[in-house]
């Protein structure tokens, strides 16, 4: 009896470990980009730490992507395929709901079992394209309006901001070394001194 009890105690930490669920994360990939003003940047909105071949999977999401609209201009969205596992269609929309606010929404029609079994544990929800308008550095933010699993239960996620830095395109004119500048003077002084 005692041995059984001890054995149970020994197993308990293992169970606790395996039962712990790592927090879901949503962020940008790449997290930070440095580009030249006038360029176009492409960034993925990625979700990670989902179940691998198991729940939780994502059945729907509704995110606001915030950006500095004086720095960046939204161009387009390309939605991922992990909420439409069989290519039969999902419902998705990308709408600029305000200055510097892009709403991303996607709803899967796939069955919960399929989503749980077949959806990747980390994947790109959408790929965003922005034009860089000015030289600046600004953040890309994520606000989760709703995130639901395959059974429409709410999920929480840690969000990580991204960063875009842009710089002007400048040509560096190399400066002559100080000694190089002094050299003609020194030569001149030497010549002068020898003549004297």
């Amino acid at each position, binding site marked *: 009896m005692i041995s059984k009890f001890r054995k149970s105690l020994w197993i308990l930490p293992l169970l606790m470990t395996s039962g712990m669920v790592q927090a879901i994360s949503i962020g940008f990939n790449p997290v930070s980009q440095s580009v030249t003003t006038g360029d176009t940047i492409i960034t993925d909105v990625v979700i990670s730490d989902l179940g691998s071949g198991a729940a939780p999977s994502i059945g*729907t999401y*509704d995110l606001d992507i915030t950006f500095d609209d004086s720095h960046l201009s939204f161009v387009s969205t390309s939605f991922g395929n992990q909420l439409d596992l069989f290519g*039969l269609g999902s*419902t998705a929309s990308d709408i600029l709901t305000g200055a510097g606010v892009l709403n991303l929404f996607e709803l899967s*029609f796939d069955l919960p079992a399929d989503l749980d079994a077949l959806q990747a544990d980390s994947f790109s929800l959408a790929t965003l394209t922005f034009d860089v308008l000015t030289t600046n550095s600004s953040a890309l933010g994520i606000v989760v*309006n*709703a995130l*639901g699993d395959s059974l*429409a*239960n709410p999920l929480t996620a840690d969000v990580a901001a991204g960063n875009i830095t842009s710089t002007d395109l400048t040509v560096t004119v190399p400066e002559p070394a100080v000694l190089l500048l002094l050299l003609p003077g020194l030569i001149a002084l030497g010549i002068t001194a020898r003549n004297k």
Partner: protein
Amino acid sequence: MDIIANENRLINNSANGSAEMAIPVLREQANRGEEIMLCRKVRVDLRKDQASRFFSKKDNGNIIRRYSLRLVFLLFIGCAVQVTASPALPFTPTPGLADAFGVGIKARTTVLGAGSGPDGVGFRLDFEETFETPREFTGLFRTTKKRIERFNVSTQDIKVDFNASQQTGKFSVFVDALQMSTPPVRQISSVFTQYEIWLHDVIYVFREDLLPPTDPVTIKYSVNVDAVINDNAPSGDHRGGVRTTAFIVGHSTTTKRPAQSGITILKIDNGPNRGEGIVSFEDALIQFGIDIRLSGRGGTEEDGRIEVTLDSAVRIDEIPPGYVCRSESGTFPGCDDGAGPEPELPDIAISNVRVTQAVFGSNKLAKGRKTVVFADVELLEGEVSEPVLIGAHFQDELAVTKMVSFGPNETIKPDEELELVPEREGIGRKLTVKANFFDEIKESNEKNNTEIKTVDVLTTKLEFPYVLTLHPECDENPVPQPCVEVKNSLTNLINQSNQFLWDVFPLPNNQLPGVGIDPIGVGLNFSTLGQNNIQSGRVGNEQCGIITASIGWIDDLRAVDEIREKGGWKRAVGIVPDNYFEYHSLPFAIGIHQPDGFSVLAEFGTTQTFIATSAHELAHTFGVVDGYLKCGEPSGNFITEAYNVRLDTLISRAVDLMDKPTKDMSNAPLWINVENWDKMVQGLNNIAKDPEIISIGVLFEKDNGISKIYPWSIFNGFPDQVEPGPYSIDFININGQIIKGVPFQVNFKVNIDPLGEMDSQFSLISFASPFPEEAVLVNIVGPNREILASIDPDSKILNDAIIRVAGQCFTDNQERFLLDNNIAIFQQQLENNNISVSIEILNDIHNIATQIMVDNCEVNNPLKTTKEDLLSLIDNTTKRLETRIVEEQPIPGDIDNDGDVDRDDLNIILAARNTAASGPDDPRDLDGDGMITALDARKLTLLCTRTRCASE
């Protein structure tokens, strides 16, 4: 001098197609000094030949399901005014509308011969008109009529004043076609709605000193008619959209004519995708309409809207000095209408409505019994030159009407009769009696035209045998003459008794109660004296006292009652000879009934005595008590007024059949009083409520399960005793629970004489089972509890009954398809659990059956369905379905309430994404978190009734 045109000539010329022809006539007449009337309203009714032209387009087959509904509007505009004045008027016409200008609509919907095209599917029209200007009128004109032949729906007369500050006035006509049926209707022959729209005041101003006029002055009106069609209705209802054509009768919408001064401009705009144009008319009469073709089932959405806007006219604030004016309405200050005083409108009223099936003062009626409604039709004000149509109808039933003509100085038509039959059972049903039934006569007060009575209509039934009890000597051979006489006179006696019972008992038409056995052939010799110690007499004065009678009559009563039981009757009347009761030591008796018993004995006596006695004793069996005092003393009460609906005669001073007449009432007829009538309605209703059983027929095939399911039926009777076995008929309630199971055996054996029992490939299962009221599903379950068949009994039984309607029971057997089509729709709706819609379709089927089937048609095959059988079954099914609707739960996710969960519902959620729910019951907030979010959308995808939330 007034300028009044010859109205008839204007009308005639206008009717020829051009007001241009009329205007020179006016001018010519004015120049001749004749009186000319301008801008009178012209009313032209759409004649039938015109209507048929409108409705003759054929289905081009492009649309799978297509319906045609046309509303034809007659637009009457205050005609162009051309008067002469020189120089021009000394005031400047200003834009906008004076209060004196207004527009009105007189709407009159007429549905003639409506119902179906050659494919036999009807439709329902639903009109609603709203007025968007500041208005005196705030109600709605709304009618819903279905498949009614030659039925004038309604008339409304509404005027709406324009708002001067807004400078525009507008009204709109809402058009919605509901409940379109599935097969196409290629042609609707004669359905039209006619509207008259007119400016209800037109002001004419003339310079007094320059008349007759020489130069024209123009007052111009512009009227826009916008036909706005909702062709983006949600696909749940109008799948495939709505195709519409707005049109002006006789003109294409693309026709453009140059605007001319002094004429009315009519613009029809039927949407950017349909093109638009301005059409000008010289005619004073303008007709326009809208043709709506749905490619899907109708719904609650608006299908189309016609908006009429009067957007400009000349403003006249006051009449300048030196000018005279005319105002058609006479309401403009300083103007008269030029037409003399308005004729006084009549005021017709209905009053003193009384309803009778035999007695006055009862609100209990027998279903299916002739009913007479009396009403006084009064002319409270004015005069009517035409007959007044009065009508009456029970709730949701067809109306009966009649014309009533008032003579000169006649102000009341008392006790006008209307005969009708209540076809539907129900407590608190409304009986509407109305004068000026279709509002055809314009009245000063229409609120006193209608009187509504609330009545209880119950199903009643009485069938019993007359059992003749004869002297024992009648069995002798040869039979003594008195016995033969008694037998021979019996048929006549029974006929008369039946007739009286029908007159005074609340029984449906054509049901004579005493039927079932041939009394001549069931002679029953009454008993001998037997024992003499049974107390059975009455207590009282000379006829009273404790009388010890023989037990013999009890033996006979028992014998009669046994015959009743064996025949499955609810009551029985034993006819005993004249000297019967005396023979049994009851010299004063003529009839006997034992409390709580169901059989009675009545002495043959005279015909009148027997009739009265059998009715009296039968009434006892329904709990009706004697009206006379103890020992047979008459109460002295009498019935002041009653009515014999069979003979259509009024009865006054009658004696209740449970009472006895006083001496001065010795010649008064026997009848029934209100109190006893009500008891009889209840009693006969209880009898009609035999337990309901279902007759089930299923053919099993060895190794293949169910081979055939025969027609089923329900009736009142007794269930069969079935040999239990591993199979079962399970009755399932709305919650999916088995409420009754009838186990049975399936033997694949057959007895063939003289061969004996042999194996068979088939086994017929046929038995009658109790039919629980709350059963919504019947499962035929196999030996391993596997469900072999699952059947909605209401759907199947009604369908089977319709299949079994005999051809001769239709007025035209070709119309059978009307029932077939509608039962198919009914079954589909029931399958989708749309109970409310199913009940509406049942209502349609009831109306169709009422119209296309023959009353009391004779069928040789008792399995055939008659009209009465079918109507009764429909009523019964409706009641059963109504019990379901009480328990009907909304389908989670069915936000548009169309019976399924699909993309349409999803779109509703998505449209409201990230907004707050309207409350805890907001169907969009599926997770109940107070917000409508993507989570609700995902939750809905899990509730969708089809794969990936596909729409139907």
